[in-house]
């Protein structure tokens, strides 16, 4: 370990090292049992942890962190019509996006539309998803039924969002879709002048976002509701609380983290949607994702990157605002 040619200022440490080496040979498997809590054992376990962690984080570094960093770098480079970009630093891409900073600007118009769709989707998923999670967690008593119904609820998550969008847009929506046909049969709509205009419209996209993403709200709320202490609910009832006050004072505070996590998921993922929006609206509805995709396909890499960076900033602001409703670290 330490060479004997150089004078060592702390010879005792050296001796201790040698002793410890001998000890290690003698008590190797005792050490392996975790009985030795010495600095060397700790160091070795740190190496083991590092070895386990390294492949995963190298992979994530290359395919997650580096791409995200390069979006930021690219947003400050100069656009070039022939090769896409040259590495000259500029802030022109941002000033192009920020002038004019109003809904006359196609970028902000699309951003505002995305935000509307996303905010309504979050609210609707919460309102319509909470009773589902509540039913599964509180009203289904038998564990087998609970698991079976939960899997039935969750199964569509494992199917393609693109396929679900196709199934949404063509057989269901539109003036000759199943929904309008049903409304015509009820006598409240007609084929020529449908009650709900869902032929590749924003309404159709809006409803689809709720249908596609509601599982992201049901799942976290379900898991937290399942953990709510039933004795606390009984105690609240015994102390004279009615259903609403028990729900508000006992159940809701314990489920807030689930609501927050679900809201973050839906907000972030719907703001970034573009494939499903294009399928459902046939290009008639442009969201910020569609806007950026158009730039990238047109090899306007720096402009697209700047658009994406502003989107990410808005996503971070949104997530920050949502987390104000619950202290996730303490509540979970």
């Amino acid at each position, binding site marked *: 370990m330490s060479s004997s040619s150089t004078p060592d200022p702390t010879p005792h440490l050296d001796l201790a090292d040698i002793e410890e080496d001998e000890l290690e040979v003698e008590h190797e498997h005792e050490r392996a*049992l975790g009985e030795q809590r010495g600095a060397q054992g700790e160091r070795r376990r740190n190496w083991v942890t590092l070895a386990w962690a390294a492949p995963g984080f190298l992979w994530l570094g290359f395919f*997650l962190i580096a791409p995200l960093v*390069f979006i930021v770098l690219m947003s400050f480079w100069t656009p070039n019509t022939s090769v896409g970009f040259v590495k000259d630093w500029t802030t022109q891409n941002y000033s192009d996006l920020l002038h004019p900073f109003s809904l006359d600007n196609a970028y902000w118009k699309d951003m505002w539309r995305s935000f509307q769709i996303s905010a309504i989707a979050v609210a609707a998923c919460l309102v319509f998803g909470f009773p589902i999670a509540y039913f599964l967690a509180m*009203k289904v008593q038998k564990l087998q039924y609970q698991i079976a119904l939960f899997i039935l609820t969750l199964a569509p998550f494992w199917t393609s969002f693109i396929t679900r969008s196709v199934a949404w847009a063509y057989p269901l929506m539109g003036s000759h879709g199943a929904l309008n046909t049903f409304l015509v049969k009820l006598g409240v709509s007609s084929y020529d002048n449908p009650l709900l205009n869902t032929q590749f419209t924003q309404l159709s996209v809006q409803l689809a976002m709720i249908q596609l993403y509601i599982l992201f709200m049901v799942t976290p709320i379900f898991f937290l509701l399942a953990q709510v202490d039933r004795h606390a609910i009984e105690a609240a009832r015994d102390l004279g609380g009615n259903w609403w006050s028990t729900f508000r004072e006992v159940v809701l505070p314990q489920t807030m983290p689930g609501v927050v996590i679900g809201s*973050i998921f839906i907000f972030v993922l719907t703001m970034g*949607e573009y494939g499903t929006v294009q399928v459902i609206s046939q290009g008639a509805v442009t969201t910020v994702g569609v806007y950026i995709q158009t730039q990238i396909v047109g090899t306007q890499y720096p402009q697209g990157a700047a658009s*994406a960076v502003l989107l990410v900033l808005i996503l971070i602001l949104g997530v920050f605002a949502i987390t104000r409703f619950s202290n996730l670290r303490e509540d979970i």
Partner: protein
Amino acid sequence: MSSSAYAPAMERTQDTVVKRQYKSKRDWAKWGLATYFVIFLVFLYAPMILMAILSFQGYQGGVTFPFSGPAGLDWWRSIFASEVHHGQQVIFTNADGIRTAGEGSLWVSLAAGAIVAVLAFTLSMAFRRSFRGDGIAFYIILLALMTPGFLLGLGTQIFWKAMGQETSLWHTALGTNTVWGIPFGFLVMMAIWNRYDDHIDEAARDLGANAARTFGEVTLPLVWTGIFGAFLFGFTLTWNDFDRTALLVVGNLTLPLEIVGLIQAAALRPDLYALGTATTLVSIAVIVTFLVVLAIRSRFRRTTVHRVEEELGLGGGIDAEAAEQVVEG
């Protein structure tokens, strides 16, 4: 205590009133919610069921209702065979493109599944004990979960362009897809480790097994369902992905890209629905496989435990149900 003398004489109305009220209220809410749950399931599944129904239309079929008969398998055949004969007429199909896309999808999903399984497992092994910076490391994994697929595809495209490299299915789309699968696999593995008893490992070591043997013969057989779960997450998420792949590849190399390709074709035909239903069935088959494996394993495991308990005469050990009955009785 003196009041106890009056107790038998007192009417216990309060008890009965509370009980009756509680009971009737709960039942009403339960059935109301159950009805709502059924409506919710219809909302969730109706589009896919309608799509499946329309895929069985006859030769004249379009993409909307009304159903155009006679019902048949023409459109299902058309996603597998290059030509489908309908009487004298020959329907030309997209089967060649679909076959290429299907193979691409299958191989890249299997590869993504394998990578996710390995990396989710190794990452979770690191997190079994706390280490410096594990908070930030955990947030990086959550970031992988939270980043919209579209942004990641975009970033990868820009990153590789900046390096002067071309993006492709196997170089970039595979990587970005695993990034979406890793956090899911990781969370599955963490759930497994939370229920895992570390004393089992220690017992193996006490009995003389070294680290490698303990890992191979004790740890791995106990947690492989979690690893398998991570594999399936990686597989299905890649199998179904569009946003992460679309920006990075040229041409219809996977089934979701092929489906969007069919939509952009001049005339929409029910073969789109047959293909969509087929890919959905594969996904559902994967979930069912996993559940069956899980069920078989848990049954197998339970019988083993019982056998050991009987052999050792521990049958009346800790039995939660029996204990509850004792308490209630």
